[in-house]
């Protein structure tokens, strides 16, 4: 299936979803006014990916910051991943910058809701 490659902008993150390698990455800032529009294609892609997924899938989330308009959409991405987990073994790597407690807590909040293993990865600089 076709990969998703989206260049980041000051308001939206860089996205690389690659079914060939089984690596799904979201990086940067996510502060669009209307996040549903941005995230819906990503959620749809994951739905299709389930049928042809690699045995292992690594999801790298490396967000500097996201607004609450993105919060629920990011949860939708994770829920979709949850629904295909089993067809492929998913690991979510949640990156946050050193001492950024807000982003660490945000990751932990998703971890509490989503039944997929999360790895919290502290980075010196994002």
């Amino acid at each position, binding site marked *: 299936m076709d990969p998703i490659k989206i260049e980041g902008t000051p*308001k939206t993150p860089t996205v690389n979803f690659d079914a060939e390698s089984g690596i799904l990455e979201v990086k940067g800032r996510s*502060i669009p*006014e*209307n*996040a*549903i529009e941005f995230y819906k294609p990503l959620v749809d892609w994951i739905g299709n990916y389930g049928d042809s997924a690699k045995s292992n899938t690594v999801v790298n989330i490396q967000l500097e*910051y996201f*607004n*609450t*308009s*993105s*919060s*629920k*959409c990011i*949860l939708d991405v994770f829920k979709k991943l949850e629904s295909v987990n089993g067809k492929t073994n998913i690991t979510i790597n949640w990156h946050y910058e050193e*001492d*950024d407690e*807000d982003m660490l*807590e945000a990751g932990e*909040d998703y971890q*509490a*809701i989503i039944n997929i293993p999360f790895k919290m990865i502290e980075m010196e600089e994002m």
Partner: protein
Amino acid sequence: MPYICSNLLEILLESKIISDFVGQFTDAKLLMNFHGEVNEERIGSILGEVEQKLENTEEDFKKQRKVYNILVEGLQNLYHHTDAMSNGNDTESRTAAFVLGRKESEYSILTANFIETENIAPLRAKLDKINSLDKDGLREYYKEVLDNGQYSVHGGGGLGMIDIARKSGNKLEYNFSDVNDHFGLYILKIKV
């Protein structure tokens, strides 16, 4: 679209709460003082300008980011929750105020916008609930709303104020006043 009155800007400029708030900062510490019509483009340019100023004035990078994040949320909230109204010229207008000032290491943010009277009671109830919760309580409330499956048009679904309260670590100070039978002025103050 309901007609409110043509002097929205004057109402903002005459508000004692807003002028007292602005007055507590010296010019050098008043980082932003905006009154006028808001749209997506305007919000974007205000945020860009403020980000630049924060980079120049705040050495603490974490603080800089926290203040900026709260501003993004505050301004997007301000825009989405300002009820559109006619200004008498058959054009839609959303008029609002936004002020950012600094005293030593504490930043204060004020947002002011007009909302329909029927929206005041639920908003007040929500703000009171947020203010009644401690850090852990806010976190639980955030998770509950995050996972409630409800979406607003722009996707946030009621998380904005909870997020602001969580990040700021302080109680939200608010005020509602009547403009006429249909509209009120909503003023919110946030300390970071």
